[in-house]
C-alpha cells in the first residue's frame, strides 16, 4: 500500500472522515487549526457538515445534537478550548451519546503556551466535567497510530454510547510522518435505535437527556453507567511494551515523551543498562493490571514515569505498581519537550540511587 506523508492534524481529520464522521463542529485554536481547516474543505465533499461554531461551548453542544440524531460527530480543540467543552462532555456522558473529542494539548494552565504539553491528563482521565462519568482516552504516539485510533475512537464511542477523547500533544498534531491507509473492517455495532431522528414508525418518541428528576432514578442511571465503564475497562485496555523482556528499569510514557524515551532506552542499552518502555495507549482505562504484573517480575527494579507535565500519569503508575517497586518521575512542562539526554540522565541518576 502506498505510503503518504501527512501532517498529524490532517491525518486525524482525514481518518475521522474515513471512519464515517459526518459532523464536525469546532472553533480555531493553536496548535490544532489544521483539523478544522482540513475539515472545512473535505467534510462538505464527503457529504457531511462542517460548522465553525461561535465558541467551543457551542461546538460541543452541536456535537451533542448531531450525536443525538445518530450521526458520527466530533470536535477538536486545544487545552483551554477543551476546558470550555467539559460541560458538554459531561452532558454527553450523562445522556449516553457517542462522540469524539480531539484534544491537542498545549502548555497550561490558563492560556499557557502554544507549544506541546501533557498537562490535561487529569482532566481527560478523571472527567473534567461534573458527575460520576468517564471518557475513554486514546493516546497515539505516531501518525499511523493516530489515524488507526480515530477509527477505533468512533467504534468505541458507538459501541458503548460514550464520548471518547483522543489525547495528543501539540507535536503529534504538527509533525509530519508517513502513513498507510489501512482497511478498517470495524466491529459489529448495535443499531442506534435510541437516536432522536424522527418517529420512524415507533410507538414513542426517542428522548435524549441527562436529566433525572428523582434521586433513585439518577442513582440507577449512575449504576448502569458504572457497569458500562467496567465493561470498557475489561475490553478496551491497550498498551505497548518496548524492550521490556529483560528490563530492570521501566520507563512509562505516552505520546511524544514515549518516543523520546524509546530513543533514550536504545542508547542506555548500548551502555548495558537494561531499560524498557511501557506505553499506555488507553489512558482511561489505564492498563493497571498489566503494569502490576510487570512490577511483580523479579528482574524489574524500578519505574520512572516521563511526562510533559509536572506529574499526572505518575499517579496511575503508582496505583498500578502499588508499592511493589519504587516509582520515580521526570517531567518538563509548559510547552518544553524533554531531550533524549535529559531522560537518559534522569534514568542514570535513578539507577545509581537504586544500587
Amino acid at each position, binding site marked *: 500500500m502506498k505510503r503518504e506523508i501527512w501532517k498529524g492534524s490532517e491525518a486525524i481529520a482525514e481518518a475521522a472522515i474515513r471512519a464515517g464522521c459526518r459532523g464536525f463542529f469546532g472553533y480555531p485554536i493553536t496548535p490544532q487549526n489544521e483539523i478544522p481547516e482540513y475539515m472545512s474543505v473535505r467534510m462538505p465533499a464527503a457529504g457531511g457538515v462542517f460548522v465553525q461554531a461561535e465558541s467551543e461551548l457551542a461546538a460541543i453542544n452541536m456535537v451533542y445534537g448531531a450525536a443525538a440524531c445518530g450521526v458520527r460527530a466530533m470536535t477538536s480543540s486545544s487545552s483551554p478550548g477543551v476546558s470550555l467543552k467539559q460541560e458538554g462532555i459531561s452532558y454527553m456522558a450523562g445522556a449516553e451519546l457517542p462522540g469524539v473529542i480531539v484534544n491537542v494539548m498545549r502548555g497550561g494552565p490558563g492560556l499557557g503556551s502554544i507549544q506541546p504539553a501533557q498537562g490535561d491528563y487529569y482532566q481527560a482521565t478523571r472527567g473534567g466535567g461534573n458527575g460520576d462519568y468517564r471518557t475513554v482516552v486514546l493516546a497515539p504516539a505516531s501518525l499511523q497510530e493516530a489515524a488507526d485510533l480515530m477509527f477505533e475512537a468512533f467504534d468505541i464511542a458507538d459501541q458503548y454510547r460514550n464520548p471518547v477523547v483522543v489525547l495528543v500533544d501539540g507535536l503529534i498534531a504538527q509533525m*509530519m510522518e508517513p502513513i498507510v491507509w489501512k482497511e478498517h473492517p470495524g466491529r459489529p455495532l448495535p443499531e442506534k435505535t435510541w437516536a432522536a431522528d424522527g418517529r420512524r414508525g415507533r410507538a414513542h418518541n426517542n428522548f435524549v437527556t441527562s436529566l433525572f428528576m428523582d434521586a433513585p432514578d439518577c442513582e440507577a442511571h449512575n449504576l448502569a453507567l458504572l457497569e458500562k465503564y467496567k465493561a470498557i475497562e475489561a475490553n478496551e485496555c491497550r498498551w505497548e511494551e518496548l524492550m521490556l523482556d529483560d528490563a530492570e528499569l521501566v520507563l512509562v510514557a505516552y505520546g511524544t515523551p514515549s518516543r523520546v524515551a524509546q*530513543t533514550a532506552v536504545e542508547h542506555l542499552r548500548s551502555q548495558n543498562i537494561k531499560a524498557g518502555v511501557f506505553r499506555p495507549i488507553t489512558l482511561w482505562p489505564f492498563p493497571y493490571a498489566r503494569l502490576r504484573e510487570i512490577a511483580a517480575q523479579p528482574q524489574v527494579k524500578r519505574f520512572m514515569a516521563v511526562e510533559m507535565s509536572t506529574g499526572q500519569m505518575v499517579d496511575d503508575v503508582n496505583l498500578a505498581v502499588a508499592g511493589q517497586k519504587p516509582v520515580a518521575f521526570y517531567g518538563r512542562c509548559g510547552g518544553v519537550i524533554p*531531550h533524549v539526554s535529559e531522560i537518559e540522565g534522569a534514568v542514570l541518576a535513578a539507577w545509581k540511587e537504586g544500587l
Partner: protein
Amino acid sequence: MDGGLWITESRLTVVVGHFGSGKTEFSVNLAVALGKSGRPFALADLDLVDPYFCSRTCEDVLRSSGGRLIARSQRCFDADVPSVPPEVMTLLDSQELFGVLDVGGDASGARVLARYRDPLIRCGARVLCVVNGNRPLTHTPEQAAAYIRDIQQACGLAVTGLVNNTHLCGQTQLEDILEGNQLCRTLSARLNIPLTCTAVPEHLAGQAAGLLPRVFPMKLYLKKPWELPLPEKEEI
C-alpha cells in the same frame, strides 16, 4: 551536479508551497548553500501560520554557515502573534545580500507576500514552489496546479520555478524521488514553469544525480525531538 549554478542565479528566492511540502527544510539548505558559495546571505522566516518546525529554530545552522536569520523578535518566537520582522526590508533594499524568504504553507501562508509584492518584483526575485508528490493533496498534477494557482492569487506573484522535494521524512527512497520527478515534469509542461531542481536527502544524492539533472543534496535540519543527535558525552 550542474555545478549548482541555479543556486546563485537570483539574489532573492521566495519559497512557497503546500503545507508540509518541505519549504523550510529546502529554504534552510538553500541558505546554507548560498553561504558555501561565498555569498553574504540571510534567511527571512515569514511563516505566520505554523508555530512548529519553523526556520527560526535553525538560527545556529545559519550562523555557523556565515549567514543570519531574519525573524520576528526572539521574545515572540513561540507566541501565537503573527507579525513580520521589519528587517525584511533591508534584505529587499540591499544590492549584495542574498536572501531566502521562507513563507508559510498554502495560499493562507503566501498571503504575507502581498505586502512585499512590488519590491520583490523590482528585485527580480524568483518564486520557487516546493512540491512533494507524497503529500495527499498534491500528488496529482491537477491538485498541485490548483495549489500553485491559489498561492499565486494570494500573493500576486508568479511562481517562476518548481522544486521537486518528494519525500517521506526519514524514510524517503529513490523511487519516491523519481515518481515526484514525473509529477513535476508534467506540472512543469502544463504550467510552463521550469523545474529548478530536485531536492534529495544527502545519502541518496549520488544515486539521484546519475538519473536526474540539478540534484540538490539536502541535510535534514528539522528533526523531531527523538531524532536529535545526542550531545557530546558529559559527566552526569
